[in-house]
C-alpha cells in the first residue's frame, strides 16, 4: 500500500512540477537577456521486458529537474515492476541537488529511498554525472545506507548514430558493495551488472523515441549465492520494447 502510494505520488509530482514551473517561466522572463530557470522531464527507459524464464517486467528510469545553470534540483526514479507477481522488484527514488564542477561534469548530493517488495532502505547519495571524452555519458554514485552499508554504482552509456534518427544505445550499469547487506540480498564485492543494447528511432523530435533491444542482467559473488539460496535467478536475458520520452 505504502509502496503503491510512493509510486503514484512521484508520478503525480512529476506531472505537477512542469505545470507549476511552466507558468513561472513565462511570467518571470520579461526581457530577452535573463532566462534563468529551466525544467525538464525525461524517461530514459520506459519499457516492457520479457525474460528467458518468461518473467514479465515493467521498467522505468526517469528524472525530472528544475533549476538554473548553477544549481538544479533533480528527482531520479528507477523501478522494476513484476507484472505477474504484481510487486516492485526494484523501486528507487532519489532527490538530489546538482551543480557543475567542470565543463562537462556535475556533482550531486541527496537522498535515495528504496521501497521495493521487501525491506526498505534509505541512503545518502554522492555522485558525479557528465559527459566523458569520446561521448560517453557517465553517472557514478556512492551510497551510504542508514546502517552504514556503502555501495557504488557506475552507469555508462554510448549513443551510436546509425543515422540522425536511428540511434543504437549501448549501456552498462555496475554495482559494487563495500559491505554486505544480507537482508536485501547484497553481498560484498561486485553485486550486479546490467548491460543493454537498444535500437531506437526518434519519431517525434527527441520527445518520443520508440526502441527495442536486449538487456542482460547478472549477479556476482555472494550476491549470486544469496539469490540462488532464495530460489532466484543469477542471470537473465530480456527482450525489451519501450520508448524514450522527454517533455
Amino acid at each position, binding site marked *: 500500500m505504502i509502496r503503491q502510494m510512493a509510486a503514484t505520488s512521484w508520478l503525480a509530482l512529476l506531472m505537477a512540477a512542469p505545470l507549476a514551473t511552466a507558468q513561472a517561466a513565462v511570467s518571470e522572463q520579461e526581457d530577452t*537577456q*535573463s532566462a534563468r530557470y529551466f525544467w525538464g522531464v*525525461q524517461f530514459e527507459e520506459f519499457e516492457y521486458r520479457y525474460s528467458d524464464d518468461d518473467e514479465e517486467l515493467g521498467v522505468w528510469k526517469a528524472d525530472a529537474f528544475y533549476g538554473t545553470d548553477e544549481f538544479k534540483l533533480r528527482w531520479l526514479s528507477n523501478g522494476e515492476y513484476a507484472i505477474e507477481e504484481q510487486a516492485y522488484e526494484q523501486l528507487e527514488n532519489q532527490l538530489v541537488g546538482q551543480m*557543475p564542477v*567542470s*565543463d562537462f561534469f556535475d556533482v550531486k548530493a541527496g537522498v535515495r529511498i528504496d521501497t521495493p517488495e521487501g525491506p526498505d532502505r534509505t541512503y545518502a547519495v554522492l555522485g558525479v554525472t557528465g559527459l566523458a*571524452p569520446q561521448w560517453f555519458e557517465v553517472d557514478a554514485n556512492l551510497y551510504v545506507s542508514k546502517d552504514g552499508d556503502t555501495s557504488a554504482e557506475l552507469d555508462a552509456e554510448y549513443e551510436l548514430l546509425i*543515422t540522425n534518427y536511428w540511434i543504437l544505445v549501448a549501456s552498462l550499469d555496475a554495482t559494487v558493495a563495500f559491505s554486505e547487506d544480507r537482508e536485501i540480498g547484497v553481498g560484498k564485492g561486485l553485486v550486479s551488472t546490467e548491460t543493454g543494447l537498444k535500437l531506437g528511432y526518434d519519431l517525434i523530435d527527441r520527445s518520443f523515441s520508440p526502441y527495442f533491444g536486449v538487456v542482460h542482467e547478472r549477479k556476482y559473488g555472494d550476491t549470486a549465492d544469496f539469490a540462488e539460496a532464495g530460489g532466484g535467478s543469477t542471470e537473465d536475458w530480456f527482450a525489451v520494447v519501450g520508448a524514450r520520452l522527454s517533455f
Partner: protein
Amino acid sequence: MRVFVVTVLVSLLSWAAQAGEYNLTVDRVTIDAGEFTKQGIGYNGSSPGPVLRFKEGEEVTINVTNNLDVSTSIHWHGLILPFQMDGVPGISYDGIAPGETFTYRFPIVQSGTYWFHSHSGFQEPEGAFGAIIIEPEGREPFRFDREYVVQLTDKHPHTGDRILRNLKMSADYYNRQQQTVGDFFADAQSQGFWSALQDRLMWGDMRMMKADIEDVQGFVGMINGKSPEQNWTGLFEPGERIRLRFINSSAMTYFDVRIPGLEMTVVEADGNYVQPVSVDEFRIGVAETYDVIVRPREDRAYTIFAESMGRSGYARGTLATAEGMTAEVPELRPAPLLTMADMGGHSGMDHSGMAMGDMDMAAMESDGMSGTDGAMAMDHGSMNGDMSGQMGGSMAMDHAAMGHAMPEADDNPFYADGSGLIPEAANGGRFLAYTDLRAQRPLYEDREPTREIELRLTGNMERYIWSINGVKYEDAEPIRLQYGERVRFKFVNETMMTHPMHLHGMWSILDVGQDKWNPIKHVISVAPATTVYMETEVDAPGEWAFHCHLSYHAASGMFRKVIVEGGPDSVADGDAEAVDGQEGEA
C-alpha cells in the same frame, strides 16, 4: 501681429508635415508556415508587422498598444535615438504592460533599411518583428525603379521557451546533421581508416561536433511571412532596377543569399551606404541588413534563394514579371563541417602546448591529423580543477600567443584560416566578404581610439551557456564608457559558433583595414576562432544593450549592459524632457 500669426501657422503646418504619427498594436496571431501553423505574435494583426516608412528629419510618434496578456516591448533595431526610446526592458525602460499603450517619440536622424522587434522573452522568434524604411533627406547615391523588402526569418514549430529548455537539456536536441556511422565509413574510404578514426577521436576528445553549425534546426525559412511553397513574389518590368532590402530577422539562422541569373550590387549594409560592390552571393548574419540592386532584363522569373549557413533549411521567393510565374528552385548544397581551425579558441584546449605557429591547420585537416600526436596533445587536466559553474578559470588562454601564431586567410580574414565556414558562391563567382565593404559616406572623422576593450566571446556548448569574458549577463558588471571617447572593441571568439554582435544606440565601425572608409554597421558577425575589431564613437549618453543577436545565446547570457557616462547635460538629463519640450513648441 498678423505676420506673427501667419508665421506660427506656417511653422505649425511644416511641423505637422515633419511629424509622423504611427500606431502599432501587439497581437496574438496565427502564423502559417506551410509545413505547420502556429500561434505567434505580430503587429497590427500580422507577422511580420507592417513596413514602417519614416523620413529622415521627421519627429516620429509611435503609439504601441499591448494586446497581449504578458508584457512586451519594441526595439528599433539600428536606429540612433534617446536611450529611453530604445525599447529594452530592464535597461531602457520597464517594457509595456498588458493593455498599456506606450508612446515612443524620437527624431529620425538617419536613412536606410532597418527593422523593429520585441525585446521581451522570445516574442521576436515568435514573430514580433517588422521592417523600417527611412527615406533620406537628400538623393540616394544610386537609382532604382522599384523596391521590395525581403525580410527573412527562421520559423520554428516550437515556442522559444521550449527551444531553450530543450537546448539546456541537450545541446544537440535540434541537430540532425551529426556525423553518423555511415559518414565514418565514407571518410574511412576517402582518407583511410586510421585517419578517419583519429579524426573522430580528436573531436570526441574535445566533446565537440564538426556539425555544430546551427543550434536550432527544423525551421522553415520564410520571406516576408511566406514559406518556400507559399513563394513570396515581387513583380517587375524587364530592364527595371529593383532595390531589394534584405533584413535577416531570424532568431538563430544565417542565410547565404543568391538570385541565380542575376548579379546583385550591394549598395547599403546595416542602413548605411557602401561603395557599390557587385556579387553573386552574400551571407547575411542574424539582424544584419543589406540593400542590393538587381536589374533583370529578361521577361522571366528569378528565384531568390536563401540557404541557411548550415544548409538545414532555406527560404525562397521569386521575382517575376507576372503573378504565378516561378523559376527553378536550386537544391540545398551539402552541409559544411567545422574544422580544427574553427576550434582555435575552444575552452579546455591548452594552446600554449599546441605549437600552432608551425602548423598549417588546413593541411592538417586534410591529411587526417597524421603525425600530430605530440603537437596536438590537449591538456584536459586543466579542465578538471576549478570550474565552479562560472567557467572562469579554465577558460584562461594565452591569446597573445594565439593571435600571432594563427595566420589569417589572405582572401577573407573574417574566417579562421582553414575554417569550414568560408563561403563560396554557388556559381563559382564572387561571394561578398566584410573586406568588400567600404563606407560611402563616413559618419565620423577617422581618429585614434582612446582605448581598447577586449570582449572574449565564450561559452559552453554542452551546457548551452553563453557568455562574454566567461561571465553571464546576470553576473556581469556593466561596461562603462565615457561620452566623447572612441572605443576600439576587440572581439575574440573562443567558441565554435558564429556570433552576430549588436551594440544598441551607437554605430559599430567595422575595422576592415580601410581607415576612414571602414563600413558603419550595427551588427558585427564574429566567426569561430577569429578576432574582429570594431570602433565606436561614444556619442549617446545613457544605458544600452550589447549582445549576441542569436536569441538563445542572448537569453543564455551572451549579453551586456553598456553605460555611457557624462555627456551634454541637456541630453544626459533625459531625452524624454527634450522630447516634451519639442512637443510644447508644436
